């Protein structure tokens, strides 16, 4: 792996996104609309629902979207022959994986800044903890989504299969992450399972920030997220093969 080739890959992926304005618009507008809907639904409720759910969604969107986008994008590279040629060129497998992750981290930064400002100024979200931590967790969860997508895409042979990877990998995590039911109320086995799923830690960090926690309260969850990212990069790099059937 060499930094300039990683950056060249990042620039290439960002150029592809730049030519695809509709995808950028969807990446940013869809979470804004959904947050807006939540704010509107609970408009007259006395409980500050948006303050509770807003930060969690800001953390979950990048993971979800970047997972789908990268698993489809890498599948395209596999079926279109571009990956095959890259693998015969002097490009490291790590350059490919980390280049993708960095490109989507940049996208996640743009997405989360716009969405958080929208949530605060328009939807009336109050963030009890520091706002910059929201950005940190949002970017980490985007990078995690991207690297998990890269690793999972090795399992898909067609685009239909690639799209199914999202419900297969992310919906169980969404059910068990503590957003739908507090984790300590779940059966013990499920609590254990939720502890080995990465989304749990992204949501935990966001919930703590929403409740007024700072770096001290969230650094444990953030550390676990970083470990998951390192693991996903390693997995994605090993599932990337120079030789195929």
């Amino acid at each position, binding site marked *: 792996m060499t930094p300039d080739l990683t950056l060249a890959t990042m620039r290439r992926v960002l150029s592809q996104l730049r030519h695809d304005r509709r995808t950028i618009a969807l990446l940013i507008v869809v979470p804004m609309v959904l947050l807006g809907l939540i704010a509107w639904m609970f408009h007259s409720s006395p409980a500050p629902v948006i303050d509770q759910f807003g930060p969690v969604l800001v953390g979950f969107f990048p993971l979800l979207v970047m997972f789908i986008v990268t698993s489809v994008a890498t599948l395209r590279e596999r079926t279109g022959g571009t990956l095959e*040629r890259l693998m*015969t*060129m002097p490009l490291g497998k790590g350059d490919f994986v980390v280049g993708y992750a960095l490109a989507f981290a940049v996208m996640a930064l743009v997405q989360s800044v716009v969405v958080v400002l929208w949530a605060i100024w328009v939807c009336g979200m109050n963030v009890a903890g520091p706002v910059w931590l929201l950005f940190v967790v949002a970017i980490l969860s985007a990078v995690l989504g991207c690297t998990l997508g890269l690793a999972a895409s090795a399992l898909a042979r067609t685009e239909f299969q690639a799209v199914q990877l999202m419900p297969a990998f992310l919906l169980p995590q969404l059910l068990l992450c503590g957003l739908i039911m507090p984790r300590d109320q779940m059966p013990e086995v499920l609590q254990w399972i939720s502890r080995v799923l990465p989304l749990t830690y992204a949501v935990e960090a966001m919930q703590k920030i929403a409740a007024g926690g700072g770096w001290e309260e969230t650094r444990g969850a953030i550390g676990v997220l970083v470990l998951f990212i390192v693991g996903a990069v390693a997995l994605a790099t090993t599932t990337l093969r120079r030789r195929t059937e």
Partner: protein
Amino acid sequence: MGNSEGAPAIAVRGLRIVRGANHVIEGLDLTVPTRQVVGLLGPSGSGKTTLMRAIVGAQIVAGGTIDVFGQPAGTAPLRRRVGYTTQTPSVYPDLTVGENLRYAAAILRVDDERVTETLGEVDLAGFGKRIVRTLSGGELSRVSLAVTLLGKPDLLVLDEPTVGLDPVLRRDLWDLFHRLRDGGASLLVSSHVMDEAVRCDRLLLMRGGAILADGTLPELLERTGAVDAEGAFLHLVDEAVAAEKGGAAA
């Protein structure tokens, strides 16, 4: 080229490739000399692409050895010396021609000047800002070829680079291949069009995962008594089928 001087461009010994239950290639030997344009001719499905993928190190191989310039195929030092063009153009359709080439240039460590020069070589000067998706099939395959040419590789493995091109462009590309050879490069070029045999220094005729013949066109014509490459190919196929039948009867 250092330690590998004197070694052939490609040396394949006892190559076996298995896909599922199919033995796609079973015990194939061949040698491609340096500084020649070698044509790999055969009908579609004869195993040309599989063989080329094995030579560039993209194919899982079940047995045998492949050496490129004396080094095992697909190893890191060869990735700079071998250029590969896949049959379907492997470029990003959503990027411009220039963006595609500059990404490859970064990987191959060549400068922007070389990018411009390469675009000229494949007759795409002035196409730098065009989005690849909007190009015609012939233009697309030349963008893909340009990526291969960028790094001035010592060995070019080109899978059907002239398919679908108009005759003028085809002639220009073959002229380019000859210039690259004169400049010291070795080329392995596949085609299912037998007419292209006359443009090659040597020919490898392939069918059913095996090499039917290996030699220059005049040698092949003399051996088979045919008037062109297609005739020679048919003669060799008939001969092989007759030998198989004879073997089965005995």
